[in-house]
């Protein structure tokens, strides 16, 4: 979102528009639909069906939040350099100014949320960015923990400029704060606060208004935000379902998502041959948790996600690489036996793929998976609450006091934990939750480079 700090650049841009009578915003090509005008450079290759996806996202957002933002102008820049040179966005950032989205990405869910909410108010950055992080289906976000005593930094910082710890606090604290507000007061109150919130970066002023509106000390709420219930984005999950007859379903990466309805606890496998990582995420009460998307690493080829899911509706989204079409094939079978022996009896071959094991929130006992390695592998831990046991066999897992442990279980770090190929060629992996927050668990396994 465009904010105060970009004012100088915005005024320069406005001045140039007024003085010259034209701007350098992309406008060589124009696609239109009922609620969007899509502007692009002459050399951009546009897919006209993108208007359908924009309309679909808007319809879903409107149904969920009942806002009427009017017609949105979406300006697609050639690349980041084009955007930085020819838009009022702060350098290095996509942005939204009023109802105009300016981005070098063809579809930017986060910025679109800003545009959808434009008529709803101009709140403090922590609320505006938090809402845009929270209301996400295509690219849901896991909001990282912000130390409670850092709330003045989170609510007192700008969301512009290069990535800094303070800027990250704005987004992460903001998302958790919006999730908290949704839980505390529901959509109507949150939108009312969004409307009333003053667009300040004065932490004390924001805190005062927050406390007067919600009747709670922001410092106390900041402690409650540590709860994993507030870690994820929220999605209405009204997108079409993945095909369940064994055929593939295609959808454009980072422009749309799909859903899966699960009747009973099941083993859900999502295979993608297109190179995208495909993830399920929780829809119902999605503030309870969100998917964990490893956004920085692109898979090297085919990927497979194996998920233990309970009954309910789940979203399915495709992450990086950010272009192309995900071709996803699901297989699903009811499964309530996730013991080590059962997993070991049917190991899944890594076979050069990138495999993600994911456990939906609320699964009380440990969940075992087994994989056949054709060489050494590496492991990334994806869930904030994930505790991992990796063993060559179930027997070793049962016998050792500290079974076959890996050096660190901390979420996020270290990356790419080495997993040597055992002589048997098979490993078993158990996912446990090391806390009682009920968040999802996950690991990603891939062949060592």
């Amino acid at each position, binding site marked *: 979102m465009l904010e105060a700090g970009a004012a100088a650049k915005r005024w320069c841009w406005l001045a140039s528009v007024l003085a010259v009578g034209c701007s350098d915003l992309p406008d060589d090509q124009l696609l239109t639909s009922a609620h969007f005008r899509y502007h692009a450079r002459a050399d951009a290759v546009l897919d006209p069906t993108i208007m359908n996806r924009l309309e679909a996202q808007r319809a879903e957002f409107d149904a969920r939040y009942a806002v009427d933002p009017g017609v949105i102008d979406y300006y697609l820049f050639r690349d980041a350099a084009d955007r930085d040179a020819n838009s009022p966005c702060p350098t290095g950032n996509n942005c939204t100014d009023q109802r105009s989205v300016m981005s070098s990405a063809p579809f930017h869910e986060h910025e679109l949320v800003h545009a959808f909410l434009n008529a709803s108010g101009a709140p403090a950055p922590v609320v505006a960015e938090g809402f845009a992080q929270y209301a996400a289906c295509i690219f849901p976000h896991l909001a990282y923990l912000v130390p409670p005593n850092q709330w003045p930094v989170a609510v007192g910082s700008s969301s512009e400029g290069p990535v800094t710890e303070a800027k990250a606090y704005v987004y992460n604290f903001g998302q958790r704060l919006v999730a908290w507000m949704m839980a505390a007061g529901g959509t109507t109150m949150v939108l009312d606060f969004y409307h009333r*919130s003053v667009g*300040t970066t004065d932490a*004390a002023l924001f*805190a*005062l208004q927050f*406390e*007067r509106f919600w009747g709670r000390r922001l410092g106390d709420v900041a402690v409650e935000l540590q709860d994993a219930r507030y870690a994820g984005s929220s999605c209405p999950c009204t997108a079409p379902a993945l095909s369940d007859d064994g055929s593939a379903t295609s959808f454009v990466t980072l422009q749309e998502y799909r859903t899966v309805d699960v009747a009973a606890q099941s083993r859900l496998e999502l295979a993608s041959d297109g190179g995208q990582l495909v993830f399920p995420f929780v829809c119902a009460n999605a503030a309870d948790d969100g998917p964990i998307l490893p956004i920085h690493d692109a898979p090297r080829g085919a990927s497979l996600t194996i998920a233990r899911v309970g009954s309910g509706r789940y979203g399915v989204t495709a992450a990086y690489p950010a272009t192309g079409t995900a071709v996803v094939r699901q297989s699903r079978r009811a499964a309530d036996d996730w013991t080590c022996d059962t997993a070991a009896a049917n190991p899944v071959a890594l076979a050069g793929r990138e495999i993600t094991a994911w456990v939906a929130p609320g699964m009380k006992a440990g969940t075992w998976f087994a994989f056949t390695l054709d060489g050494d592998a590496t492991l990334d831990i994806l869930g904030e609450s994930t505790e991992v046991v990796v063993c060559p066999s179930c027997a070793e897992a049962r016998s050792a006091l500290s079974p076959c442990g890996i050096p660190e279980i901390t979420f996020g770090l270290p990356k790419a934990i080495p997993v040597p190929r055992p002589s048997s060629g098979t490993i078993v992996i158990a996912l446990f939750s090391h806390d009682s927050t009920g968040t999802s668990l996950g690991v990603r396994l891939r062949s060592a480079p």
Partner: protein
Amino acid sequence: MTARRGRAALRCVVFTGLVGAAFAKTAAAADRLPSPWLVEPEARVGADVTAGSARQIIQETLELGVGVTARREGWAWRGRAGLDVEPLTDIGPGASLQIFRAHLGVERDWRRHLVTALDLGGAVRRLSIADEITRTAPGITALAEVGWRVFLDARWSLTAGLRSSTTWFFPDEFLWQEIGIALTLGRSRAP
């Protein structure tokens, strides 16, 4: 009464006492000044309602102010300078807000009783929430006033004014807008 409130009350008493002493001293000095310049002190109390974004923070405020006016004998125009404070306590859990303004301006008498004035100046917003956080933000302010002045006797006047002010706190581009009424007691001779 908590210790914090006690200290706040003590500060308020001390502040009021200092202002009163300064007012009396200035009034006495004004009487000693030779003509044709008249420098006359004034003190003011007012009540404001906020508008715009400020209304999301607080709806009503109390305003206290002191100032001096200076004019030449017989002139309808006066220059004036003033200091205002809006001391807002208990506006939230442990929260207090003060807005200080210092301004310079001009005022004009119209047909003896009607007064109009325009002031420009600087402002400081100080907001504290318990012991957790205190933030101070500078700003610039503009104020317009229309008043009706009555002369109580040969030296004292009382002005009932309608005042509208806008203060722009530039660190967060926050506009604090108010409109209110004020009673100004001045050491003022009729023009």
